[in-house]
């Protein structure tokens, strides 16, 4: 039986003490154990950033790629071997900034990967520039008069793009987040879990306490994840009350389902065909 210990990495964790990333890491481990997956059965792909260091702090197969480019790597890996269980850890800058185009198109592909965005609303690893999800007007070292772009709403965007699994978690509620990850991995198709994550070093606004006061579980309010319009309305709810949970879920054919050549099984396992002109 796989246990959380199996996922413990010897590699020294490099995050700041108190960072929300730790909660996400623990929730991932718990979810993988719940799913009964062993470390060698899991591939975690990431980009570059604090969030993207996650796979080093787990024991599993890992591809820690370029800033912004985790999703295309995951797509390629799935094309090659769709038997893989692929999770992607990305940051708000990684995924919605540098990697924004891949995010849009990964949703369209409905690729069967679980995308966990560590949304700390800041560029952590590069020391505190605004990210796409930073609030309009938030001052940073490089935006001393505050940011001048409107904050990006990942949940609304994913819904508008047609995502089949859209959820929000909070790093401060590990059990709930673990449940979301389990549901995301079980969902056949692209699953987005945007995680509210305090950055103790660079985001003085969205602290653990700030979130703690505001978040609530949608499940407790009779939200129907099959209702797209309700999900869209919830995705836009922010401020005093911030919904957590699965906003939307819809089962539809995945990318792999739609490719005839993959009916015979993962490409990597298909027999070679001798070349003939």
């Amino acid at each position, binding site marked *: 039986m796989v246990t959380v210990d199996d996922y413990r990495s010897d*590699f020294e964790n*490099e995050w700041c003490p108190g960072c929300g990333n730790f909660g996400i890491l623990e929730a991932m481990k718990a979810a993988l154990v719940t799913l009964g997956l062993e*470390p*060698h*059965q*899991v*591939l975690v*792909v990431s980009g*570059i950033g604090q969030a993207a*260091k996650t*796979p*080093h702090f787990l*024991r*599993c*197969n*890992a*591809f*820690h*790629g*370029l800033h912004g*480019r985790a*999703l*295309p*790597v*995951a*797509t*390629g*890996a*799935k*094309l*090659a*071997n769709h*038997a*893989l*269980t692929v999770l992607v850890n990305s940051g708000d800058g990684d995924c919605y900034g540098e990697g924004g*185009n*891949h995010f*849009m*198109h990964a949703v369209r592909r409905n690729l069967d990967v679980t995308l966990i965005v560590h949304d700390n609303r800041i560029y952590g690893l590069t020391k505190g520039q605004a990210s796409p999800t930073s609030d309009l007007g938030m001052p940073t070292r490089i935006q001393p008069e505050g940011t001048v772009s409107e904050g990006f709403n990942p949940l609304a965007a994913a819904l508008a793009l047609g995502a089949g699994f859209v959820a929000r978690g909070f790093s401060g509620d590990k059990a709930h987040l673990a449940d979301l990850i389990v549901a995301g991995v079980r969902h056949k198709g692209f699953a987005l879990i945007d995680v509210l994550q305090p950055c103790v070093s660079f985001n003085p606004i969205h602290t653990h306490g700030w979130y703690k006061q505001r978040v609530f579980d949608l499940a407790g309010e009779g939200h129907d994840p099959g209702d797209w319009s309700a999900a869209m309305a919830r995705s836009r709810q922010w401020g005093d009350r911030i919904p957590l949970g699965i906003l939307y879920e819809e089962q539809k054919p995945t990318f792999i389902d739609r*490719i005839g*050549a*993959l009916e*015979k099984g993962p*490409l*990597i396992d*298909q*027999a*070679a*065909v001798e*070349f003939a*002109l």
Partner: protein
Amino acid sequence: MGLDRTIVIGGEAGQGIQTVGQLLAAACHGAGFEVLAVNDFESRIRGGHSSIGLRVADRPVSAPCRRIDLLVALDAPSEAVHRSDLSEDGLVLADRAAGLAEGRALSLPLEQMAREAGGKILANTVAAGACLGLLGAPEDHCRRIVRQQFEAKGDEVVDRNIAAFTAGYAATRNAAFNGRIQAGWDRSPRGRLMEGNLSVALGAVAADCRVGAFYPMSPATGIMAHLASLSGRYPLVVEQAEDEIAAANMVVGASFAGVRAMTATSGGGFSLMTEALGLAAITETPMVVVDAMRPGPATGLPTRTAQGDLNFVIHASQDEFPRFVFAPGSPEQAFETMVRAFDLSERFQVPAIVLVDQFFNDSLFTVTDFPPPPKVVRHIIGDADMADPAAYRRFAVTADGVSPRALPCRGKALVVAASDDHREDGHLSETMADRRKMVAKRFAKLPAMMARMRPPETLHPEADLLLATWGSSRGAVWEAVETLREAGRSVGAVHFCDLWPFPAEAAGELFATRPWVTVEQNYSGQLGRLVREQTGLKPAGRITRTDGRPFFAEEIVAGLKETKGLKGPK
């Protein structure tokens, strides 16, 4: 000099001149001639001016010839554009071939004949018939070709085209034309007709490439289109990515997960892939990238040809790492090069780049059958190959720099890779010791990589003067050498397919003892610069063409005459 005819068909995009070209090419090739068909078209879908230049000969031809024997002008501008290249006893065939001396023009009411045969759009087939009549091709043979060409579109289409062909053919079979090919129509075809494009795609499947990811970009799209059409026969998926960055990263992902993967693009797309090239390098993930060159900078001339990316692809991406760069000179070599590129990329776990160009990709060549590709060896290990899978380290230091490569989720061995520099187990490290170890490890591959590089191909290497070239300019250079030698000059040629790691020793031996001139389609003479960087030897001159059209042998001959300060060759 044996048989050598050039037929140019010109018209607007949308007039179906490609069909004419294909019919002529198939008819001539089917009768045993050597054929080359070069496409020349603008970056638009309808209108403008495009042409196909067909060369028919009794010896292999792989470069176009300027002198036109038969010009088929499907619109008035085509006549104007090409007339100056008409040979002395050349003929213009057109609806209304005006302004030319008696005997040099043949006016045929192509459109009207087409209408009579079933519709205005058949004018191209009428023209094809007229050409074949002039060339002296046997009628039955031609009918078979027309039938084959349209078979897939149903009987009605076949019949109308046969009618159109017949009308054209009948109108010219007895016309006077000095270029008529009197004999040789009764042989069986030599090899097959093939686009350069296709030879690249076939090489990829022969190497067991299973994932192709790309973003459309001329002149590379054809490669991926061919690959897509092969995906029914082989275990292969071709995915159109949202951009070139995604395409390149998908290739890395697919390769990391365990199948051979490639992308093809042109320079602009390659620019966007340069970061991923470094990703493949530091994660030591095999990756094959085809760069189909066109003139730049930037969008440049999207549908024209160039050889301007050599230095770029050798140096692309920040910092340094070993890579392979190849530039095949023929479809046969392209096929083999793709097979080698996949093998070497996987064997050494480094990226391999293959340079082709628009001329090569979009031309039809007479290709000899490819030899059966060697058995694919994957250079991959599994748990069974390890004493202790739990101790597996993806970047284990070895004598030759190549670490045994396992795949993720294919056993108990965990595979960890990172774009940051790392320890042997793949986890991040910034220590000086680990960094030095990894830099040394990556570069330790160079000697064995170098040993795999083939020396350049030579033609009369003993000559007093050498023309040095690479990629698809080989054909024109080879032909130029023949011409020059026929004129009594002691000239030879050197063609580099394997360009990086650069075979400096072989180059040094060739170039140290006599003058040499580079022939390439770029401004600065990049091969010359490369040779000098690697050997210190300086070319006596350079012959370049940068206007987007492929070399003619005759301009190389002329270029040599103009090369200043060239001493030596008699």
